[in-house]
């Protein structure tokens, strides 16, 4: 029998029982645990492997406590990153921000390593999902402002050279992945698909260069902090009264200009739409100006300095973030290839709409 290039992973999306037991033992938890594979809200219920295709998670009950065990995804699965991101979350938590503190293992670290995988454990935070309301958007902006502001009193500069990113570089990397995707799937694509994907790729590459230049002239890189890097509604848990109960998932955190977080939060809360099962992007329509303004008002309340300092570059950064998100959606199969033409024009629209909103 030929040896496969890659071992089959039938348990894709879930942490194996063996890894789970081993990890929890390192935290001194168990063995009597209940692992809950069904998650969601109201009548939207999903099996855990469906919601966690890149990040493996397990929701665990031990005695009367609920925990979330999470495996760092491949793109950030290093001990250095685990140290950085757990320390960042711990600092936020210590400063009273709604960021769950990564729990300490028996050997006093905030992560464990099991069978080569790095895992973290935190308390489960119960709450509700973002419902696209002005109040929730305002609270999301407020908390992001607090988060970004708090980084000024946390000294994580020793990690800066390891995890320095810029939003334009991330978008370019995604375009490279798209080109690779087209190359690998060329036999399954129609000539029209190939043409529209190539047009999207070429236009996006040119746009990224222009956007990057525009952002630079407006001071991109002058206020570099540890950013969340994926501030979207799926990483926020709200309490019943609409406040942010938890900011989750720091797997994309890096040192970047503060406008990265502001633009990403703004786009994700007021523009990006998810399909009914919440796992894929839907085709966005128009930017919701009142939601966007509420988000920015919230941010302004807690971190006026950063908003004022970065305001002029947010439109360019937002367009670059959108290119990254749309490209991810194409590769992941969220969008039909017949919609790619429509997608190509969206970053330009977003840039001007955000500019208008900030005026």
């Amino acid at each position, binding site marked *: 029998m030929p040896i496969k290039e890659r071992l089959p992973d*039938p*348990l894709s999306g*879930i942490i*194996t*029982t063996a890894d*789970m037991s081993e990890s929890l033992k390192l935290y001194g938890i168990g063995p009597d*645990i*209940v*692992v*809950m*594979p*069904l*998650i*969601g*809200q*109201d*009548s939207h*219920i*999903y*099996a*855990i*492997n*469906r919601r966690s295709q890149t990040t493996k998670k397990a*929701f665990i*009950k031990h005695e009367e406590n*609920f925990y979330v065990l999470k495996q760092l995804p491949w793109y950030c699965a290093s001990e250095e990153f685990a140290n950085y991101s757990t320390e960042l979350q711990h600092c936020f938590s210590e400063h009273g921000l709604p960021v769950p503190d990564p729990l300490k293992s028996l050997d006093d670290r905030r992560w464990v390593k099991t069978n080569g995988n790095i895992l973290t454990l935190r308390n489960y935070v*119960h709450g509700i999902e973002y419902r696209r309301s002005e109040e929730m958007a305002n609270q999301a902006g407020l908390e992001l402002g607090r988060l970004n502001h708090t980084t000024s009193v946390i000294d994580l500069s020793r990690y800066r050279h390891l995890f320095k990113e810029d939003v334009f570089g991330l978008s370019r990397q995604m375009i490279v992945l798209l080109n690779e995707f087209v190359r690998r799937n060329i036999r399954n694509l129609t000539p029209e698909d190939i043409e529209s994907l190539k047009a999207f790729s070429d236009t996006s590459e040119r746009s990224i260069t222009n956007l990057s230049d525009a952002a630079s002239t407006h001071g991109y890189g002058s206020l570099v902090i540890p950013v969340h890097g994926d501030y979207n509604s799926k990483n926020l848990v709200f309490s019943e009264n609409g406040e942010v109960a938890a900011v989750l998932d720091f797997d994309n955190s890096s040192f970047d200009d503060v406008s990265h977080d502001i633009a990403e939060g703004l786009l994700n809360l007021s523009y990006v739409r998810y399909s009914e099962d919440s796992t894929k992007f839907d085709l966005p329509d128009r930017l919701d100006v009142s939601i966007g303004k509420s988000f920015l008002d919230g941010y302004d309340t807690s971190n006026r300095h950063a908003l004022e300092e970065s305001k002029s570059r947010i439109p360019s950064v937002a367009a670059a973030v959108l290119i990254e998100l749309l490209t991810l959606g194409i590769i992941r199969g969220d969008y039909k290839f017949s919609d790619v033409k429509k997608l190509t024009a969206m970053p330009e629209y977003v840039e001007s709409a955000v500019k208008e909103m900030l005026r």
Partner: protein
Amino acid sequence: MSIPPQTVFLYSCKGGVGKSSICTNLAYTYSKTGIRTGIFDADFYGPSIPFMVRGLEQQKPNISRFTVRPGLYGDVRVNSVGFFMDNKEGMIWEDSYIDGALEQMLYSPEWETDVMFIDMPPGSGAIHRSVFSRVNGKAVIVTTPSELVYDVTARGIDILDRMQIDVIGIMENMAYHKCDNCKHERNVLDSDREVCESLGIPLIARLPYDPEFNVSNSGVPYVVAHHDTDLTDKFQAAASRIMANYGKNVTMRPRI
């Protein structure tokens, strides 16, 4: 745990004998009399109850914290992992996840039912170990008349015996075909051996091979879509016999 004492496990050691169809139709036969009835689809590997009741959806299952409350399909409360999985999406169910899903969907919710039917997966494994040890109930074995199935059924009865689950009886599915014209009944499969005699278990019912029953794609169970047929009568008789094993004397006449 709010699972009622009148719980019936529909069980077969072999797959493909029509266990889920019978489970569904027995449940809806009860519910037609006004008894509060529930179905739990414990067949995580091939959940088919959602397909059979989807035409009666009044309220989908919903989740609160981690408890998954059953949905309402007609008058029957129903829970199944099949509601939460894409039709083409598989999941490898490790034991710990099975225990958790059972906790979320079966043991934790308030069922608010008087009678409960649990559609067990074929064979024996983690689901059987958990459900049979935590839920008080009795088993109805579903089989089809063939030598192969007899042997497998005998093994299934042995498993139930080891798990100390009382067996109410056997429902023999696809046992015969009744000619539409001359009404002659002819065995469909290759054996005429009386399964119950050989296994020493009461025969609850022999059900015919009826394409309308066995191949129903409408999402509405046969006993809901049909009234006063031979088959609905058979389900009423079977339901009465099953309930008698719980010390209940229930007349299985539907409410008008």
